[in-house]
């Protein structure tokens, strides 16, 4: 999983702001890399081989790694977000003294529920996102109120063990033996694709889709990503009826 923070260390969360909390049990448990997977990826209480292999690899890289099933999350009578931030608040600080730095969700939203979040600049509009799970620091005395991620979170949106194995194997291959080009023709590090679309007809507005965007969050985000990458980009449009799909390639 290549996260947004891995792409730009300057965006790394400022964990210095988090003070380790004493645990109610007196036990200090720190987890650097937390995997939360749907129950479909467990058998007999054991994670499937692919998830286990990924955890072993992260463990080998020095991350204190932990795999949790949704059953474990449910046993704690908490949602995914509370589980991730567990330990930040004195009344709930039981499992880890500092929160994880990386969180990987394995499963589709039906297996590991997604959160609902708000766009930073359009707080009136709620949308599905895992971002609130990463928004764990206290802000003005309340958790998660600044809409900015404090840890790196990613999701492998698969529904079966076989699909999970396919994706995880690709990730492991990439991480273990990064493809280092021998010639400029294969220098794919320099190419990125950011795809988005105009949100035409996103709401039941009369006359939609009409070829005009009703919202522009996705395009705006794509532009920001492209700007962040700092490369020139090409712009394509594929008009299909009133829906238009675009790609920004940096």
């Amino acid at each position, binding site marked *: 999983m290549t996260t947004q923070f891995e792409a730009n*260390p300057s965006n790394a969360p400022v964990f210095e702001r988090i003070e380790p909390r004493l645990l109610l*049990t007196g036990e200090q*448990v720190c987890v650097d890399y937390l995997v939360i997977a749907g129950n479909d990826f467990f058998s007999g209480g054991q994670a499937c081989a692919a998830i286990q292999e990924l955890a072993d690899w992260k463990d080998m*890289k020095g991350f204190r790694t932990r795999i949790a099933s949704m059953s474990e999350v449910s046993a704690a009578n908490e949602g995914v977000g509370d589980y991730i931030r567990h330990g930040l*608040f004195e009344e709930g600080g039981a*499992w880890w003294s500092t929160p994880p730095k990386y969180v990987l969700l394995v499963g589709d939203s039906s297996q590991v529920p997604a959160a609902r979040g708000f766009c930073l600049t359009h707080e009136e509009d709620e949308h599905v996102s895992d971002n609130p799970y990463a928004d764990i620091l206290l802000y003005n005395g309340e958790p998660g109120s600044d809409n900015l991620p404090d840890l790196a979170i990613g999701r492998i949106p698969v529904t079966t063990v076989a699909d999970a194995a396919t994706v995880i194997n690709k990730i492991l291959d990439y991480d273990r033996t990064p493809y280092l080009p021998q010639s400029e023709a294969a220098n794919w590090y320099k190419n990125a694709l950011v795809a988005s679309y105009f949100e035409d007809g996103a709401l039941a507005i009369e006359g939609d889709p009409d070829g005009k965007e009703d919202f522009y969050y996705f395009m705006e985000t794509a532009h920001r990503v492209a700007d962040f990458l700092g490369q020139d980009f090409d712009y394509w449009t594929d008009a299909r009826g009133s829906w238009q799909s675009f790609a920004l390639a940096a």
Partner: protein
Amino acid sequence: MNDARKRAAGLLPAALLAAACAALAPPARADYFHWIGAGTGGNTATDPADPTTQWNYPANWQEGQPPSPTDTPLLPLANAGYVNAASCVVKGLRVDGPSADGALRIADGADVATASGSGVNVGLFANGRVIQTGGSLTVNGLFRIGADVGGNGSYLLEGGALTVPGISDYESIGEFGTGVFTQTGGTLIVQSTMYVGRMFGNGVLNMGGGTLRVRSLYLGDAYSQAALNITDSAARIEITGGLHFGTNSTLSAVPGSTIHLPGTSLTNLSNDEVALRDLANLTLVLDGAKPSLGFTMEVAGKDYGALPIGFYDNFALGSLVIGEGTTRWLWLEDKCDNGNRTSAEALYVHNITIGPGSELDLNALHVYYDGAFINQGIVTGGMPIFVPEPGCVALLCLGLAAIGGRRIVTRGRNMANLASREGRDALSRMPIPRGTR
């Protein structure tokens, strides 16, 4: 009601619930042992005689005993104290704390090894520092310095042996984070790959002595920064696989520096001639125990023809020795556009030596030299072209001009045409040899 308010309303039940859940929670996968001796809690002791610096002193560990082979010690050093290692086998090792002043020190008599399938991380999310003056560290797994975002690691190898024996493992210096490895003595052997700058990291490899033997050495890539600094020509560098200069690599090397290449390739993706200008101080020696082993090498310079300018900031090499103590075959190639492809890129090298039985295949690419060309072997695909020294060129021009001038003056006298433009120009450019006026 938001999460915080809900929690505040149900403080006690939540606490009881959390405690119950904690009891149910499985332990983290790795058993980490936490150092609490010197370097932590305001203890700045460094003396190996001080028990708080000693690895095997039980009170220095939060768990009340030194780690076993199934444990991974974590050294969260927060000040200038030292941890003096003792011989041990541990699962992994992590030096990672708020301060870069403290250090894990490995000295004579300390042989440290990690178990297979684990790793050593020096500066993972914070700071880590290791000083090795003797003894040994054997890393049976990944060996990473400056290993993640925010990680800042350094390793100083002054003596002893540092080994990464696994063929599927690797060493990285600056992987996401910032890593510096400095070697002034001892031996570093990496049986697999060493990355200086990996995955957006920033790595520095300083070679000031000792021996480095690595299968493949990658210096940076498109998003990783890498610097190889050879500060003492006595440092021995052997690369038994490939040497790779990435896009963002820099090299500094004192004159006389040598890299031994018993391996198979040298690639160069850089477009920055200035960053690699010290290639001109390097001698690349194709040697090794595998006779007739082929070696491919990227040529990267702009083809200026047989002109001295080709040797300046143009990926020019100091010396190239093909087959020292053995026979080797060097095949030049131009797979990468190093920003100099007005025509095929070329190799400028000051000195070339081809040992007996060895072969240089130019592959129809141009090779220019301005020093010695000792050919005891075979040259195919073209022939290196001699570039006279600038002084020689000046003398040659001077001589030619002098001859031309004599003829012009003579002709002028004969034809009473000293005012001709040709004659004026020639006369203004050169001294007229004595006796011709």
